[in-house]
């Protein structure tokens, strides 16, 4: 009986995909915008800039995939669902968003602006020099920071994104289920 009910439930994948795509494109636009703002500014040695501020918006946007997906799923099918399902929908939306935005970033730096990663890397070094860091400190820092665009950098950013953004959206998915699809 339970299995039959589950089979009759509408699929949540369209909502997951929709939320993932919307959030991924906003994340990509803000991420690239932040990168170009950095390149357009003088390296002053500051670790925080207007470009970093734009980067924060990425985080706020990245966290709402769970809300968008659960709201869309509940409204589209006029259904209620438990918080566990909301968590799953949220987590999957976050994972979808990170995957698509990583692909957009890769495509951008491979086809549209292949020099972007190298320019960002050089800018980072100039910024550290402007902060009066010694050559030793710069070398040590670069040892722990993978070169932007390298396979190591892409994989580590992707892995961290999956876990962190996934967990954030798991939480917002639960909140979405509570607010838009509560069975009470």
């Amino acid at each position, binding site marked *: 009986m339970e299995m039959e009910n589950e089979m009759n439930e509408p699929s949540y994948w369209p909502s997951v995909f929709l939320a993932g795509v919307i959030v991924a494109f906003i994340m990509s636009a803000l991420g690239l915008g932040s990168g170009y703002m950095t390149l357009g500014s003088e390296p002053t040695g500051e*670790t*925080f800039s207007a470009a*970093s*501020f734009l*980067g*924060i918006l*990425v*985080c706020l946007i*990245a*966290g709402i995939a769970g809300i968008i997906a659960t709201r869309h799923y509940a409204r589209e099918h006029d259904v209620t669902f*438990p*918080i*566990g399902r909301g*968590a799953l929908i949220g987590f999957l939306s976050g994972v979808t968003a990170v995957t698509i935005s990583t692909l957009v970033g890769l495509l951008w730096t491979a086809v549209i602006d292949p020099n972007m990663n190298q320019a960002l890397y050089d800018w980072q070094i100039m910024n550290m020099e402007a*902060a009066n*860091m010694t050559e030793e*400190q710069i070398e*040590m*820092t670069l040892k*722990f*920071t993978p070169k932007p665009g390298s396979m190591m950098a892409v994989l*580590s*950013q992707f892995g*961290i*994104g999956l876990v*962190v*953004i996934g*967990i*954030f959206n*798991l*939480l917002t998915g*639960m*909140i979405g289920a*509570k*607010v838009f699809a509560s069975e009470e």
Partner: protein
Amino acid sequence: MNATIHIEHKGLYVFVLFASMILTILALGPGIFGAVDPVASIHSIQHQIFNMVCHQDPLRSFSVNGGYMAVCSRCIGIYAGFTIIWLGMPWIARMFKLENVPFLQLFIGAIMLNLVDVFGNLIQFWTNTDGSRFIFGIIFGVSTALLLINEFFKQKMIED
């Protein structure tokens, strides 16, 4: 009047508990593992983990053992508030009557409070501090965890 509670979605509760505890410990930065050079701390693995979700401005972050935390003062407040309430959920559900508490309104209020604080500081109407940002962050984290408490711990009131 006593309350008996029964837990629902136990696996999800435990998962979120561990995830939030791990994230909070990581957010404290490299300083919790010993003395660190402030400059080196900015490029630590902890900072890389949170660079997608926080501006990490050292001027707006607390430090531990010389090393900057991996998130700003508001974010560490959010993580700490959320984790403490999540950890204490079974006790809170046992001790307090949670029926009819307007948790959603508290949650929306906490969001508005933080937005007003950010905006007021941005237009230089006031200047917020690490302490004020931390407290507002805690309020948001606490209200987020409380919003979900009834989903995990169902209360049944019993007459003495």
